């Protein structure tokens, strides 16, 4: 077991390292001198030369990467080219806002979709199951921004005015102090991930409900509720937990467009802004953060799956 964990974590670290190489290399492709880009066309040659030295632009690509990675590891993400602010300062409150959004969505979406999956499995092949099954298939097909815009049309403008269409948060305030603005972005993410988790839960539950020990439990005369929740669900839930973790990782990317639609002050909207401004240090930092979350959550999903499945747990030894 320990060997498996060490191997998995080592592979995760290797992937993270390669991700940092990709992030750095992609942004190195920028045409022209970054110092000229930052200072503008009218900068004096002396200033350009000074900034070139300061940014290590006169050194080899390897040396530049080493400087950059060294800074990142020490928690220095550079200076925003657009605002001249330290990137860490610019994104710290946004990271918290995004984390809050994902957390709220996950807390609602995971139990909801597991419950839905169980319900669909119990009513298998009845009209409710068919309707939910095709409905979730349609919902799973929709891009997040389409769900977001449809919610705006239904709940924030044309049909009703229940929630704000724009997630305005006063400067210096955190998202959790203005709960109203979190509702629509969170609802979008919930609707985006629920179909995936509930479909897996349904499939896994259908299989377990057909097994001999569930029939046995029923024959013993246990009440239906006990059979389902005490006997069947604990054995059917592992694939759903795994998919939930994968969906959590997926949300790290999903927040980008959703935050943009609602102007929610998180890292996703910040990434779109930074791309628009071609603010390379901010784009590097945010891509790296999102990819790191993605890698770590995926790693967590793998480890949880192995820990929760006795067959795999012993097979790894």
């Amino acid at each position, binding site marked *: 077991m320990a060997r498996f964990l060490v191997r998995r974590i080592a592979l995760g670290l290797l*992937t*993270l390292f*390669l*991700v940092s190489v990709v992030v750095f290399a992609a942004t*190195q492709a920028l045409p022209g001198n970054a110092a000229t880009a930052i200072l503008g066309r009218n900068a004096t040659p002396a200033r350009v030369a000074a900034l070139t030295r300061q940014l290590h632009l006169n050194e080899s690509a390897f040396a530049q990467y080493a400087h950059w990675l060294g800074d990142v590891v020490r928690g220095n993400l550079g200076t925003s080219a657009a605002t001249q602010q330290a990137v860490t300062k610019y994104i710290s409150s946004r990271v918290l806002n995004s984390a809050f959004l994902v957390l709220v969505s996950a807390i609602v979406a995971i139990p909801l979709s597991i419950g839905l999956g169980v319900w669909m499995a119990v009513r298998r092949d009845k009209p409710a199951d068919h309707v939910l099954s095709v409905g979730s298939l*349609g919902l799973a097909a929709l891009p997040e921004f389409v769900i977001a815009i449809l919610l705006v049309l239904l709940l924030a403008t044309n049909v009703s005015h229940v929630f704000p269409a724009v997630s305005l948060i006063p400067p210096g305030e955190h998202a959790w102090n203005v709960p109203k603005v979190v509702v629509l972005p969170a609802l979008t993410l919930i609707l985006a991930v629920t179909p995936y988790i509930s479909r897996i839960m349904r499939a896994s539950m259908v299989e377990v409900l057909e097994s001999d020990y569930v029939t046995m439990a029923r024959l013993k005369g246990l009440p239906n509720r006990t059979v389902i929740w005490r006997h069947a669900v604990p054995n059917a839930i592992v694939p759903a937990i795994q998919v939930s973790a994968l969906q959590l990782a997926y949300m790290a990317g999903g927040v*980008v*467009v959703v935050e943009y639609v609602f102007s929610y002050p998180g890292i996703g909207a910040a990434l779109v802004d930074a791309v628009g401004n*071609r603010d390379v240090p901010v784009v590097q930092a945010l891509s790296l953060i999102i990819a790191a979350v993605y890698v770590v959550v995926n790693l967590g999903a793998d480890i949880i799956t192995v820990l929760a499945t006795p067959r795999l747990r012993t097979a790894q030894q």
Partner: protein
Amino acid sequence: MSASVITAESLAEAPPAVGQRRWAALLRATMSQWRSRIGLALFAFMTLIALAGPLIAPHSPTAFVTAPNSPPSSQALFGGDALGRDVWSRFLYGGRSVLGMAVAATIIGVGLGLVVGLTAAYLKGAVDEILMRIADVFMAFPQIVLALLLVAAFGPSVPLIILIVGISHAPRVARVIRGAALQVVERDFVKAAEAVGEPRRRVIFGELLPNVSSPLLVEVGLRLTYSIGLIAALNFIGAGIQPPTADWGVMINENRLAVAFQPWGVVLPVVAIALLTIGTNLLTDGFARAVIGLERGE
């Protein structure tokens, strides 16, 4: 099921799993489901609008025909947008770009993923390990973040978006194809082809490829659905096609500020993208169910 006696005849005929009869059965099993019929109808209808729309559009997508944000009138069926252009005409012109870009990205992604997946499954060992490690790195980025990273470096551009979306699909396709091909590699007709000295390329594309055609088609459907969503989203946030070009994603962004009093500029393209992706997804699911059904029945 597989040809276990190695003869010249058993090599000459196609592996039994890919006969024409099987494809006919698969098609029947797919089309006997309501979800596939609805999916195909939606997909065909939206494709028709995207392709034929420009032919029936009453105005040029960039001509100024009404007052800004004007309501529906005899001149503009669904009103005007913020600049006074005809919403209906822009909608009819706006599907080609999304659909065309998505199809191109799907071809690139599935093609590349297919080659990598089959190669990894066939050669195994170090090549497999290296290819899958590279795939892991690309899969460590959500697709949209990878796209934005490169758009930040190179600026928004249509070929770039097609290429990134395609390439970011490839590792995901490669995993699925590799998984399916690993089982085929062990079968007798592959060993037989190797024994008589067929070149590697012939074994990979002549023997392995026909036997992963079902998962391959499912991947085509899935990747097309995801490509449409991803490319519409990238056009929507301004990383792809640029205004004033008429495009469903661009239209939604242009008109969403005025949505309270002129909703059509948003409603038409949003519903179009929704129906298109729902169509491809329902059809893909119907096909995947037919494949599973036939395998169980066999």
